[in-house]
């Protein structure tokens, strides 16, 4: 049994947003343009939230890369009237674009505000469409979308492993964000494998989860800033 999860080391994250662009490049996320962006329609499956603490001159800033937390008990799932979003047995919070009718209820019920709506159809001025990733469906207007943990990469890796007649290795599957991360702050893997890096990080004393108190069982672990303690951390 596999349960995909992610660990993000906030002590390594410098907020460079390479992951954000990598996500766009991998997942055919549409450009909305300045006007739409000003209307709050910009789409970033992954964003770096920054929070100020204190006032000038002693200000601190916290960065939190926020993406779909692929909750074990996802509030977005039961409210979808057409099963457009549901839970795969690998713990992914899957989004089926062509089932979606666009009630946007899932987005309202997501405490992490990581779901996005296609308010318009996507423009790809020629030859920009040549960059589109053939493994990822382009979304029509009127449907929700969100981070998929790069499910296409998971599929590809699994296929390859199958071809070579072996199990998936830890760290073999890398979402676009994790792969691009200059500081290697993002670790992805199988939580059910106790020896996987992500599993070990999730047991670290620095590990927290976002809005855990809501009982959503997020699959993304955040490692707090500051010195790591030796226990368990790879």
């Amino acid at each position, binding site marked *: 049994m596999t349960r995909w999860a992610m660990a993000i*080391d906030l*002590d*390594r*994250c*410098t*907020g*460079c*947003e*390479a992951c*954000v*662009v*990598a996500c*766009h*490049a*991998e997942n055919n996320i549409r*450009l*909305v*343009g*300045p006007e739409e*962006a*000003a*209307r709050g329609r*910009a789409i*970033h499956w992954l*964003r*770096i*939230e*920054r*929070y*100020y*603490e*204190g*006032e*000038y*001159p002693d*200000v601190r*800033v*916290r*960065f939190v890369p926020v993406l779909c937390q692929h909750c074990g008990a996802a509030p977005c799932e039961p409210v979808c009237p057409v099963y457009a979003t549901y839970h795969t047995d690998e713990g992914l919070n899957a989004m089926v674009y062509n089932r979606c009718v666009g009630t946007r209820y899932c987005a309202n019920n997501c405490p992490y505000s990581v779901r996005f709506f296609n308010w318009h159809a996507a423009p790809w*001025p*020629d*030859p*920009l*469409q*040549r*960059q*589109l*990733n*053939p493994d990822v469906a382009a979304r029509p207007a009127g449907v929700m979308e969100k981070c998929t943990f790069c499910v296409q990469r998971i599929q590809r890796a699994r296929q390859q492993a199958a071809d070579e007649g072996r199990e998936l290795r830890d760290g073999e599957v890398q979402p*676009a964000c994790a*792969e*691009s*991360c*200059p*500081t*290697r*702050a993002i670790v992805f893997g199988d939580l059910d494998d106790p020896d996987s890096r992500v599993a070990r990080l999730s047991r670290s004393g620095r590990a927290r989860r976002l809005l855990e108190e809501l009982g959503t069982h997020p699959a993304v672990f955040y490692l707090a800033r*500051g*010195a*790591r303690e030796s226990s368990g951390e790879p």
Partner: protein
Amino acid sequence: MRRRRFLQNSAAAAAAAMLHACARDEVAFIEQAVARSPHGPGESVWRGSVCQQCPAGCGVRVRLVDGDAKKLEGHPAHPVNRGGLCALGQAAVQELYHPDRLRGPWRLSRGQPSGAEPLDWEVALEELAQRLARAARSSPQGVWIGCGSVSWPAQYLWRRLAAALGLPPPVRLRSVEWEVEREAARRLFGLEDWPYFDLERADLVLSFGAPYLERWRSPVHYARALAEQRQEPRSRRGRSIHVEARLSATAAAVDRWIPVRPGGEGWLARAIARELLALGRASERAAAHYRRWFPGPDPPPESLATRCGVPQEAIAELARELAESERPLVLAGGPMAAQRHGLFHVAAALALNVLLGNLGREGGVLRPRRFDLERNLPPAPPLATLAAGLQRLRGQAPQAIVICDADPVHMLPPASGVEQALHGASFVAVMAQFLDDTALLADLCLPLHAPLERFDIVEPEAALHTAAIGVGAPLVEPLGATRHPGDIALALARALEVGEALAWPSVGALVEQVLQDLHRRTAPGGTGDFWSFYEDVLDRGGLWEERPALDGLEAAAPREPIPEPKLDRDASREPSLLLAFETHVRTAEGRGLHLPWIQQLPDLLSTVMWDSWIEMARADARRIGVRTGDRVRVSVEGQAAFEAFVVESPAAAPGVLALPLGGGQRDYGRWARERGVNPLRWLGAGEVEGVGLPAWGPVRARVEAAGPGRAALFGRGLRAPEDRPLRR
């Protein structure tokens, strides 16, 4: 085996067919590449290459599907980026397929939209050749060639061409702060290069202004280094402190931010030096050097404190921390270096390394290592420094100007005189991928290959303690009738009958020759099959030493002292100080802003997309009655300048306005056209003392409300709800 035959064939063919050689050989290469891949249609092929979005020279892996580039990833083994790739690098693939890329030569009429007409390459090259010849005949000094390309073949071949034609060497076109940092390195360490800062192994990093987590040198490399410095094998977590007038993304990411008065960085460094000397941390020799660099009497501590705006005790504590730490390291640079006293700021800060005695030591300042690519090639004089180049530009108006892969009009302040020169020159040719501010002023515009469409070698401009080059091969069919700048030089050489001086049929051939040389030098005893080596290098997208080396670095015997700013009373009546800053994607070069991914990337701190913004303290904003998202009108030194969005920041110092670099291009494609403001147009501030470059930096300014606006902010919230001040 088939590879070798192909290459020989193609080389021969290329040699035979003069002008189109390069193009054909590349197409052939691509066909080969696809044919060689074991995958069928629709399958991904991964090939190595090198990123050219900035001079850092990261190694990349390119995902190709059916001949189209789909995705770039960092090369895990490349010493510069070790698998990471920054936002700009990721976006290179979008640049490749940008709908507004130049796809053929154009005759332009100095910015006038009328009279622009497409040309054939033959015609274009013919004209360029004649113009160059004529100008060279009248006076070699009358030809001004500027080169901003990070491609080594482009630089080498143009240098070579200039030499062959008896023209002055091409000018390295980089933004001012790069040059100032280089000058500081020359004076302190006697380097004709940028020193390498071994951040990863330092246990205390003190940076003055250098936005090393954003765009300085190689953000990817230094960000990774910081992460490791904090964690990987070491037991104790390293500390990092950042000194800057504004809370930059770097300041936010390090452990502690020390705000200084704009223009006070150097004085803080001097104050720390004073403490260190007092603590006796510095060796006699180092102290002596320091005294010769800064002969002036140390101002009293309290005056130093007021000059840098940092309380004395904080300074003392900082000095103590430095003195006590095992491997302290001081970095300096960034926009701060482009100020009038930039050299002073950078030098004063870097000099601390000398006092701390960490030169040439682990976790200290190291001598950069390079493969000497030109050792066994026909010699070519190095690029002229920007300072020298601008000197010449101001001297006598050049007849012909050729710009290769750079946008000096955008990235240098007007005081540089580049724009006037372009207007004055009788002929201007620009090699560019896009119609940027410089290309707009050209008579002749020659379109360039995108990096993924051409053979290339890139040397990390700010080299590491590991010699490395990136090698790129054409992986996709050129989008249009474009060329490698080096191939243009070769074609010109042939047309101008100096072909024997540049005897390579194409850049591909030059790359091959250099690699052969490197193979001889690096491979044990030059053994091993060159073609497998060649293929291996192309597949990995480069060649690099496996492990870093410690090259000694000595403080240079000081010749002249570093010019110190004299305390001039600030006469201006304008209320606030306006300074410009870099972000992860916004640099003086303004590169990347033509890409929607980059434009739509929310700025880390302000979360603004698609435009420039003015960052100011909430109190100041309230005073003029604006709030985040509104428009303000900014006037600089009394005259109306520009409009921009306001973003209130809890971290902004009262009375200080900050404006991001980049933006304000006149064209540069549909997504950058007339978007935002180019601060350099307004922040001109005399000359950088001791360097002779046009300075830009904090200027006195005034803002007033210009009505409500709708800034594109991605996240409006500033604080986590639990931090909200209690309402009573």
